[in-house]
């Protein structure tokens, strides 16, 4: 391999944003026909590096070499010309265009669309056969499943004749089966000689598919190793800079009486779509019930309803007492008074006011408690003093209550929310995506806090799209699909394959290849949505 030129070679790339050094003297060689993983915590500089490679930012220093040639990449057009394609974490597709229209968008051959569309149709058909990348070219993108939308993004890059593909956190939104299929596609692409750069924070994916892996920490490339010669533990240590416990230490649950009882919960959203179709669940004192499912199957709505800011019909009892699900007395503050704490899925949009200081955020939602009033005013001195203590207990860094929430890293923002909700000692804690966008070091701490709350006899409803996290924390696992609970299993007895099928809405294991069953289910759902949409 030494005599072939690397597909991509970066030499001494540096980039600073103000006082923050996002990339420090980074050099990396990506060999053609390989899958090269780049792993690192949030804020380690992975995205910045890829943005430089794709022409979004200009590096302050350093050189980019593509296929043995020094290349300037001032914009994404230049990147595409150099054969580099990028699949973003958040897809850049026009929702009401068909697959075909999206593929040719920006790569039309002339003023008239018809010849371009005809050509694209042929190319797509060929690519579909070659790489198992089949998508119906005439379906509007909005009716496609997330996994298929991602395929459209890959097809777009391939249609532009990219032979170097960058994928940024591609599995975040996929079911396990869809993720497996994606890896098969990547495998096929590699076999055809394409080069793939896979950016992820999931160690399992790195171990599963990459040939080589580079680890980034705090803007620096700390190591590049052959995947076969390393282990998840070693990579985690390289990422965080210290030894990390990858598994959650916990004893078996000793559940007691049900603290949260949900019966036949139904919720219709603003567009008139029924998002919860009769959910019944119970969460007992001293257990963690994990709610698995692909994003968008009603988990968010369930949390909103339980949190008191979406209306519903049905029955919800907290500690035996029924709470109103609509009208007066159905809001976040009333729910907190009833004993529900809530760590929302999206801490930046919901859990925190990003412009507020940390101390102001530590009473958000509890700001009407009489304990923090002095006369008509809020007792800011007391709130600040208590905030400092909470931040110390939850290891928020930097421990500065006067700093605005937006100036903390994702993990520390999450710790502020956790501190606020857990310190109020709720009977029931709702917790959505507890570690989304949180670095490994903080994940360990957050998981420990959740388990500690369970051991203190609280009922915890955990929603996560990370199946690994569900498995690591839950005592029981319920799977949601399309607004329904497909089944509940004891975590000790649950198996990945069965849960994966349930997440795609398949209750009877068809045997054989799980991909095909999932694929059939997904396509059935797409057809239904295209009809109704």
């Amino acid at each position, binding site marked *: 391999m030494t005599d072939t030129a690397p597909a991509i070679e970066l030499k001494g790339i540096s980039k*600073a944003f*103000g*006082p923050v050094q996002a990339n420090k003297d980074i050099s990396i060689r990506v060999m053609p026909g390989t899958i090269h993983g780049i792993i690192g915590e949030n804020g380690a500089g992975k995205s910045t590096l890829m943005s430089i490679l794709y022409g979004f930012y200009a590096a302050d220093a350093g050189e980019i070499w593509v296929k043995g040639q020094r290349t300037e990449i001032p914009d994404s057009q230049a990147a595409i010309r150099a054969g580099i394609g990028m699949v973003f974490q958040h897809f850049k597709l026009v929702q009401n265009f068909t697959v075909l229209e999206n593929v040719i968008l920006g790569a039309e051959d002339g003023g008239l669309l018809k010849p371009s569309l005809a050509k694209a149709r042929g190319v797509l058909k060929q690519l579909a056969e070659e790489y198992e990348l089949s998508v119906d070219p005439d379906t509007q993108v909005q009716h496609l499943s997330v996994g298929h939308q991602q395929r459209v993004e890959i097809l777009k890059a391939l249609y532009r004749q990219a032979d170097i593909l960058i994928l940024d956190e591609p599995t975040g939104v996929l079911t396990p089966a869809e993720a497996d299929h994606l890896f098969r596609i990547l495998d096929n692409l590699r076999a055809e000689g394409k080069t793939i750069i896979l950016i992820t924070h999931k160690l399992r994916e790195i171990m599963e598919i990459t040939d080589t892996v580079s680890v980034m920490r705090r803007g620096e490339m700390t190591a590049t190793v052959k995947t076969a010669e390393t282990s998840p533990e070693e990579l985690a240590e390289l990422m965080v800079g210290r030894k990390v416990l990858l598994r959650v230490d916990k004893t078996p649950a000793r559940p007691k009486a049900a603290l949260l009882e949900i019966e036949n919960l139904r919720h219709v959203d603003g567009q008139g779509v029924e998002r919860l179709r009769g959910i019944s669940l119970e969460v007992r004192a001293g257990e963690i019930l994990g709610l698995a499912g692909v994003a968008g199957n009603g988990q968010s709505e369930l949390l909103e309803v339980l*949190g*008191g*800011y979406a209306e519903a019909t049905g029955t919800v009892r907290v500690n035996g007492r029924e709470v109103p699900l609509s009208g007066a007395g159905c*809001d*976040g*503050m*009333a*729910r*907190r008074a009833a004993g529900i704490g*809530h760590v*929302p899925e*999206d801490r930046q*949009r*919901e*859990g*925190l*006011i*990003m*412009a*507020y200081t940390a101390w*102001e955020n530590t009473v*958000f*939602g509890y*700001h*009407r408690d009489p304990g923090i*009033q002095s006369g*008509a*005013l*809020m007792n*800011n001195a007391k709130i600040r003093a208590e905030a400092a203590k909470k931040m110390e207990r939850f290891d928020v860094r930097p421990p500065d209550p006067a700093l605005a929430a937006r100036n903390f890293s994702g993990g520390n923002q999450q710790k502020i929310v956790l501190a606020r909700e857990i310190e109020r000692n709720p009977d029931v804690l709702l917790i959505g995506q507890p570690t989304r966008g949180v670095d490994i070091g903080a994940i360990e701490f957050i998981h420990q806090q959740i388990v500690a709350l369970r051991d203190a006899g609280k009922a915890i409803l955990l929603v996560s799209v990370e199946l690994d996290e569900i498995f690591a924390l839950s005592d029981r696992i319920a799977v949601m699909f399309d607004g329904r609970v497909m089944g509940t299993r004891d975590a000790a007895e649950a198996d990945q394959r069965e849960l994966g099928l349930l997440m795609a809405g398949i209750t009877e294991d068809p045997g054989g290849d799980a991909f095909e069953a999932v694929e059939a289910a997904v396509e059935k759902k797409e057809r239904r949505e295209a009809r109704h949409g």
Partner: protein
Amino acid sequence: MDKLPPWADAVLVPLISLLLAAALSALVILGIGENPVEAFRLMVEGALLRSAGWGYTLYYATNFIFTGLAVAVAFHARLFNIGGEGQAMIGGLGVAVICLYLPWPHWTLALVAASASAAVFGAAWAFIPAYLQARRGSHIVITTIMFNFIAAALLNYLLVNVMKPPGQQDPATAVFPASTHLPTFQDMFATEAMPLFRGSPGNVTFFLAIAACVLVWLLIWRTRLGYEIRALGHSESAARYAGISPVRTIVVAMLISGGLAGLMGVNTAMGEAERLTMNATEGAGFIGIAVALMGRNHPMGVFLAAILFGFLYQGGAELALWTNIPRELIVVIQALVILFTGALDNMVRAPLARLFAARRRAT
């Protein structure tokens, strides 16, 4: 974007904007063949170097403090209340009703009642746009500006057809009874030996405006309601999560905003004209937007910006009086200040931020 240090944000940006506006104004004055230095001297002398000048400056500033605070409070909930003009007109109506139709033994009692009435009238005028925004999503900018026209028409109708004494020519109410007349600065501070503030309209309402600044500061940064208003302004989704009702908070914020704008009527109707006239507001409701923008929606900033605009108003009047600079040009100068301090804020801020960032990197 790189952030500015707080002192630069609060002091340096408005100062540079102001200097730019002054420089451009000087060019304009030069362009019509007048001497800008002389013009500036006249403005300063007329507005700031004589006590009567201060009397005028602070009278105008009082109006701008009320309307500026009104815009600022609403803006903390991310509501753009540009209906201050109409709310102030209707506030004046509230003052007139109290002063004309009820007997008052002493001005202090009349002031309390008239202030309450002005605030209630102003708030009531803001309530309809607020309700439409909160419940129906009608954009508050559109509705409040339309309510300005409705307020003007309503006031016109009432003054001409209902409140005007018989035989009077101009559309205005009768003069308020003497027991409701507010003490002016002259009444309060002038002595035989020192005839201060002679003939100027500045009056005790100025102190009411200062009190309003303090109360608004307490409201926004020290009360639960202020906490909720700001939270809603920053993130409606987070407010919902916390259990803060957007509908209730929008309505309450707009009621307070309208009430503050309405209070301006105390200054114009009761403090200065001692009757309700048609054009008492003189665009102060709109100046309030510039004042709030320049004052960063902080009561202290609003106070300082209001004094500045008071100076511009009074200085402009002096210019029109003593030079050949036409009145229209003075409006141009005021507009330039608004343009630079309000609308073009980022033009100064962005390069300044880069400058500070570069300096930080260098050290």
